[in-house]
């Protein structure tokens, strides 16, 4: 039994059709403990009675608006909340996230996207990966342990410096995709790391000497000329 699918979900939206549609998607995905409410009062009552594990809130509700509802919910439960709103302005998103919502989805949305976001929030809140925050991954014969910041190559262990570690984490987060020079400088040196481009090149060269079998002919940490770098994981 998938534990995630066991979770109780509360849908609060004043539009009947939206409630039906979202509930339909969720049931189809295997969620079965679904509650719906069309206004804040019902939602608050349901939260007290059923203690759902996650709530999907509309912002525009007939009685209280979604932001106020969240504020009231927070007085008695820390449960995760995703806003699903037709109000897509930056201020609304920032207000919602600032109030402590876990995500903010703007209508119109693709059901797949909403599902992924719900699952992501549920996983993050209820199934935290114990202790291991940084992954271990393999680049061919070489294994990179970001948790202990070490590289194992040819039965030898090479430590990673703090900067090399930060850069590798950033590259690994977007593995298979290009990460711009600017984003890497930002990750390594913070705020406006504009004057660090040359330093970045030096660090990349050092990382290559540790993670590449042949550093002068890189297979995994690739340069995308003019743009940035790309970490390719080949099995």
């Amino acid at each position, binding site marked *: 039994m998938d534990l995630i699918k066991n979770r109780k979900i509360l849908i609060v939206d004043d*539009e009947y*059709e*939206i409630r039906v*549609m*979202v509930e*339909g*998607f969720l049931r*189809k995905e295997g969620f079965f403990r679904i509650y719906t409410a069309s206004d804040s009062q019902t939602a608050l009552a349901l939260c007290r009675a059923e203690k759902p594990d996650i709530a999907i809130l509309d912002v525009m509700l007939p009685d209280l608006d979604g932001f106020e509802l969240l504020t009231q919910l927070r007085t008695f439960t820390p449960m995760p909340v995703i806003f699903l709103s*037709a*109000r*897509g*302005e*930056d*201020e609304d998103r920032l207000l919602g996230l600032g109030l402590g919502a876990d995500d903010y989805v*703007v*209508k*119109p*949305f*693709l*059901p*797949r996207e909403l599902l992924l976001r719900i699952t992501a929030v549920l996983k993050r809140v209820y199934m935290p990966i114990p202790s291991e925050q940084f992954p271990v991954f393999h680049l061919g014969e070489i294994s990179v342990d970001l948790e202990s910041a070490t590289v194992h190559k040819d039965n030898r262990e090479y430590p990673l410096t703090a900067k090399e570690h930060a850069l590798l984490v950033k590259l690994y987060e*977007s593995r298979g*995709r*290009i*990460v*711009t*020079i*600017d*984003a890497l400088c930002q990750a390594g040196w913070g705020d*406006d790391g*504009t004057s660090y481009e040359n330093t970045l090149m030096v660090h990349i060269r050092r990382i290559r000497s540790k993670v590449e079998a042949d550093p002068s002919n890189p297979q995994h940490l690739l340069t*995308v000329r*003019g*743009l*940035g770098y790309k970490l390719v994981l080949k099995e």
Partner: protein
Amino acid sequence: MDAVKVILRRFVGFTIILSIFLLILNIVMLSLLISNEIKGENSPKAVLQNVAASLHKVDAGYALNDEAKDMLLQNQAWAMLLNKEGDVDWEYQLPAEIPRAFSVIDVAKFSRSYLMGYPVFVWEHSDSLVVIGFPKQSYAKYHPYFLVQWISSLPTRIVLMVVGNIAIVLLLSIIIGTSFVKSAKPLIEGIHALSKENPIHVEAKGIFRDLAYSINSTSDMLQEKNESLKMRDEARSNWITGISHDIRTPLSMILGYASELEESSDISAEQRRQAGIIRQQGENLRSLIADLNLVSKLEYEMQPLNLEVTRLSAIARQVTTDFLNNDLDDRYQINLNVTGDHAKILADRKLLMRAVTNLVQNSINHNPQGCTIELAIHYDSGHLPCRFIVSDDGVGISNPDLKDLLELPYSSQRKTPVRTGHGLGLPMVARIVSAHQGELSLSSRIGQGLAVTMSFPSI
């Protein structure tokens, strides 16, 4: 206040120039008059000299030629010749009341002043003295005396006097000018405020009262107009926001169920394809609404800008990377050409990214056969503008249509109808650029691609 200074300076300068001019004019006129009087043909001195010159000895006495006689007659003057003993040797028109013999004392007296009320002038004539008398009350005789020291210091005194005069004129003109400017100053400030559309209320008093009233009422009118314009803009923008909000909920349903059907295995492949088209069109509609909302907010200046110091090259790299990371079709190639890597501007990164992404997407959409897209950044240094150029080598657009592309579709400025897409893309980019105090220009020719240049003020 610059205008006040200018007015005061002009006023003072003009007054000083005028005073100096008047002074010079007076001096010239006075000296002309005096010299005319003293040296003129009928001046006492001229008559005297003439008479003295023409007086000549004849057998028993003296004679005067006709010319000199005429002159004396003209001036109603009389003449006499005194010899060494003080007796009258010769006379002409001499009034009877005048004695015919004079002592040294008499001569000394009249030579300085009057002889029995007649202004007389004397001239030496070979051991004798020519005396000419003019009618009573015709000339005043003064003989000023001066200390030599006084005379020698005269130039300094004159200079001092002139300087003093100029100082007095300067002082007076500044006082008068300042009081004038003081009463005009509120008006000047008022007019300046009007041109900046600031609200203004000028105190109405003095000679400028009417003007002050006019300025106040103009200001009130401007404020009212701006207020109502702003309210109308706000109403329009809110209306568009409201409409797009209302569209979002039904569109959620269309997108939701269409994508559900697209993945359903209960229907045929053809039906799934059709559901896919519905979903795709729904997504197009979604982006149209987002663009419409942004354009309307930018148009009515209601879009809050989150300005940060931004490197243009970082934007270019991020946009290019996003396209490459999202599986850009092989028909398209994106090149970077950065000659101004240090070009920085104050920008809302999200908006600027959206503008550049939109331009690249435009090039992709309009060139289904594929093309090479170049993102170029040119910046030299200093206060020169930074240029961000997005260009392609695709089909291009004919020149006359170019300007039209920046106008909103269906607006009165747009002459040709929208051909592809919803036509909001370029107007949106243009508005984003102008929200950043930048300028956007297009250049293209059929078959030679399109180049969009955005110039931003550098920092």
